[in-house]
C-alpha cells in the first residue's frame, strides 16, 4: 500500500516522535478499541499488548528512544459530528465533497474521477460527465465517487443522514478482506 510505506519513510526521515492523525473510532468496527495515544515500536509496529489504558483525561505519553506515538485527537467524533462542526465553525473543505459535473469512468463497481491526463484509462473506457461528489478522499485514483446532487454543506449532511451505505464503502483499500485486513494494516503502520 502506497500510503503505509510513504508515511513510515516520511516520519523516519525527519525524526518525528509524535504524529497526530485524523482516524476516528466510528469508522470501522476494529477501530472502536484503538487508543487515543497509540504506541509504535522503532519499526512503526503496533503491539496490542503494549498499548496503555487511558483513564479520565490522563494520557501517559512517555516513551523510550526510537519509539513513536500516533495520537488521534478526534477519535470520539462521528462522521455526523465532523460535518456539523464544519458547518458550525465554517471550516473550508475541498470542493470535491460537493456535487458537480465531473468526468468519470465506472470500474469494478466504483466511480472513478478522471482528474487530468495522469489517469490511466483502460482500453475501451470513455470518461462520461456525471454529477458526483466524494464522501472520503483517499489516494487518487483509488477513491470512488458517488452520484449526487448535494452541492451545499446542508445538502451533503442531508444526503449523509438519509443515505444507507457506510462512509468507507468507496475505498478500494478496504475491499481486500473485511475486519482482519484493517487490523493487519494497523499493525503494518497504516494508521
Amino acid at each position: 500500500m502506497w500510503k503505509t510505506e510513504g508515511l513510515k519513510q516520511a516520519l523516519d526521515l525527519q525524526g518525528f516522535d509524535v504524529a497526530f492523525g485524523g482516524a476516528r473510532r466510528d469508522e470501522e468496527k476494529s477501530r472502536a478499541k484503538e487508543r487515543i495515544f497509540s504506541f509504535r515500536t522503532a519499526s512503526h509496529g503496533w503491539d496490542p499488548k503494549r498499548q496503555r489504558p487511558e483513564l479520565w483525561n490522563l494520557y501517559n505519553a512517555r516513551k523510550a528512544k526510537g519509539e513513536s506515538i500516533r495520537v488521534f485527537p478526534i477519535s470520539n467524533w462521528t462522521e455526523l459530528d465532523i460535518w456539523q462542526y464544519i458547518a458550525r465553525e465554517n471550516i473550508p473543505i475541498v470542493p470535491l465533497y460537493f456535487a458537480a459535473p465531473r468526468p468519470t469512468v465506472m470500474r469494478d463497481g466504483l466511480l472513478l474521477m478522471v482528474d487530468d491526463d495522469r489517469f490511466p484509462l483502460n482500453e475501451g473506457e470513455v470518461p462520461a460527465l456525471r454529477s458526483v461528489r466524494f464522501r472520503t478522499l483517499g489516494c487518487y485514483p483509488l477513491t470512488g465517487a458517488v452520484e449526487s446532487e448535494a452541492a451545499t454543506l446542508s445538502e451533503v449532511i442531508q444526503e449523509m443522514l438519509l443515505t444507507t451505505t457506510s462512509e468507507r464503502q468507496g475505498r478500494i483499500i478496504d475491499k481486500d478482506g473485511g475486519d482482519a485486513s484493517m487490523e493487519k494494516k494497523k499493525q503494518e503502520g497504516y494508521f
Partner: protein
Amino acid sequence: MIDTLTHLDRLEAESIHIMREVMADAVKPVMLYSVGKDSAVMLHLARKAFYPSPPPFPLLHVDTTWKFRAMYELRDRMAAESGME
C-alpha cells in the same frame, strides 16, 4: 434541563486537551494532513488549541502518490492561513 455545553463543545474541548497534552512530552511532533474533511477539522482544532500562537508543529502531507488537484490548492491556502510549515 439545559446543559451548558453541547456535544460539539465537549468533543472540541477534549480534542484540544489532547493536542496540548502532547506538547508536554513530545520532542518533535507533526500533524499528518490529508486535506480530507477530518484533517480540516483537526487543523482547525489545532489552531484553536494554541491560539494566538500558531500550532507548534508542522503539517506533513503524505504526498506519496497522485492526489486531486483541488486538494493541493486547499492545502496551500490552509498552511498559509495557519502560519504553519
